[in-house]
């Protein structure tokens, strides 16, 4: 995700040589993601939060739930927004200032993966139609970078939303008022899981680490829901995939997504 430092030709050659033998530089199988560590409630004062470690990539998502004005023509739906920021302390090449295209893409892909799965039912988030709705904001920050921010950020946001608690508001004399002591779990309908695959030469690897990410020619991120349907997809990078490869990636994302969904479920159950 961070802009490429000088291409380490030696590294790429080594990675390709190993891939030719069906091996990866850290000993994983080609379709094996790294260990995912999920810490729920990392930020107790937020409505929900989760810290996710994927290898040495570390991201943190905090969910804030607060009353808001509805969008102009959508008065019967609440607001769901997902943002992502690459913190300058995560990698020496990250610059401060307004987000560049790669980070904007990251944020929008993660947002779409969750939004298109309908994980957060925004029709349940209305206080008073056309006047006041509940806004659910999932803000993700990347703390340490070691490849595959798409999946790490997605898991952090999903885990945070799954374990978020929302207060209750009503209208009293035309003013939005908090109802004390009426907190409940944020209603969610499904567990979206994104799986990112990178293409290095003719090989496809699941969850590329930092070195593999630098050596990749192209990538695709596919998000599936709890029913095993594909609900979002993004191809990136400057090379292309064949039709067969794309179909294969779809199948891999369903299979690997299912395994990872169990981890997210376990994190959710750990809290209940």
């Amino acid at each position: 995700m961070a802009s490429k430092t000088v291409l380490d030709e030696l590294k790429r050659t080594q990675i390709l040589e190993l891939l030719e033998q069906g091996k990866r530089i850290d000993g994983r199988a080609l379709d094996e993601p790294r260990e995912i560590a999920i810490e729920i409630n990392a930020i107790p004062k937020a409505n929900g939060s989760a810290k996710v470690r994927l290898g040495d990539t570390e991201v943190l998502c905090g969910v804030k739930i607060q009353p808001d004005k509805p969008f102009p023509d959508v008065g019967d739906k609440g607001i769901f927004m997902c943002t992502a920021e690459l913190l300058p302390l995560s990698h020496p090449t990250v610059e401060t200032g307004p987000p560049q295209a790669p980070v904007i893409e990251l944020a929008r892909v993660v947002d779409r993966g969750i939004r298109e799965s309908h994980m957060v039912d925004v029709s349940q988030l209305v206080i008073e139609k056309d006047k006041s709705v509940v806004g659910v904001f999932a803000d993700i920050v990347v703390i340490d970078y070691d490849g595959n921010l798409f999946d790490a950020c997605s898991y952090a946001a999903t885990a945070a939303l799954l374990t978020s608690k929302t207060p209750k508001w009503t209208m009293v004399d035309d003013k939005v008022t908090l109802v004390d002591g009426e907190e409940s779990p944020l209603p969610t309908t499904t567990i979206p899981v994104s799986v990112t695959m990178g293409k290095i030469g003719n090989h496809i690897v699941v969850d590329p680490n930092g070195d593999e990410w630098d050596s990749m020619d192209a990538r695709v991120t596919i998000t599936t829901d709890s029913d095993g349907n594909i609900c979002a997809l993004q191809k990136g990078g400057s090379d292309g995939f064949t039709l067969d490869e794309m179909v294969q990636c779809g199948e891999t994302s369903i299979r690997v997504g299912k395994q990872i969904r169990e981890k997210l479920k376990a994190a959710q159950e750990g809290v209940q």
Partner: protein
Amino acid sequence: MVDKRKYVIPGDVITTGPFRPEQNVMLVGEKIIATAVGISEIYDDSVKVIPLTGKYIPKIDDLVIAKVNSHTSLSWELDINSCYVGFLPAQDVFGRDFSAHADELATKLKTGDLVAARIANFDRTRDPLVTISDRDLGKIDSGILIAISPSKVPRLIGKKGSMIQMIEQATNAAVTIGQNGWVVVSCDTPEGLLKAKIAIEMVNEKAHVANLTDQVKEMLDKKSES
């Protein structure tokens, strides 16, 4: 003759008296004060602190692993993992008869290449001058690059090379250690390569642990799975 050793952090008073302040200490009045996290050493007439962290600061004659950042028609700019970039003049590779018109730098070293090099000259007012004209230096054709903290390099080498030799013998890997914390490992087998990488990273993580050598040996002796 080292008098006393103490763990210090910046601001700690190491001693007072007529000592000459050397690396990572400063003299304030009569007090010798540490300016880095490390181990202080008091000699007969001087005091210094061996830092336990920090970037690589080039020293003349250091062997370093460097990466080619870019080049002009007259020289290469090398990343030596320091706050300073290395300067490698074309004459060092092409010889005295180098001509900017006839000789193409990219034919010998191009952007992204790794080289084993030596620091030929350095003072802080200018970027360090680097050479690759000795027999054990030059372009590195194979292997992976591992970055460790430069302050851990002595631990990775070990007493009289004992640690690195143990790793090389157990894995059949060839390891070149740069004083700048960059290490190149090459090996015929992927298992040996991975094991050597893990061993080196272990030393980097646990350099302060007393029985590190035993822990590394134990890891190396374990038969690899699959």
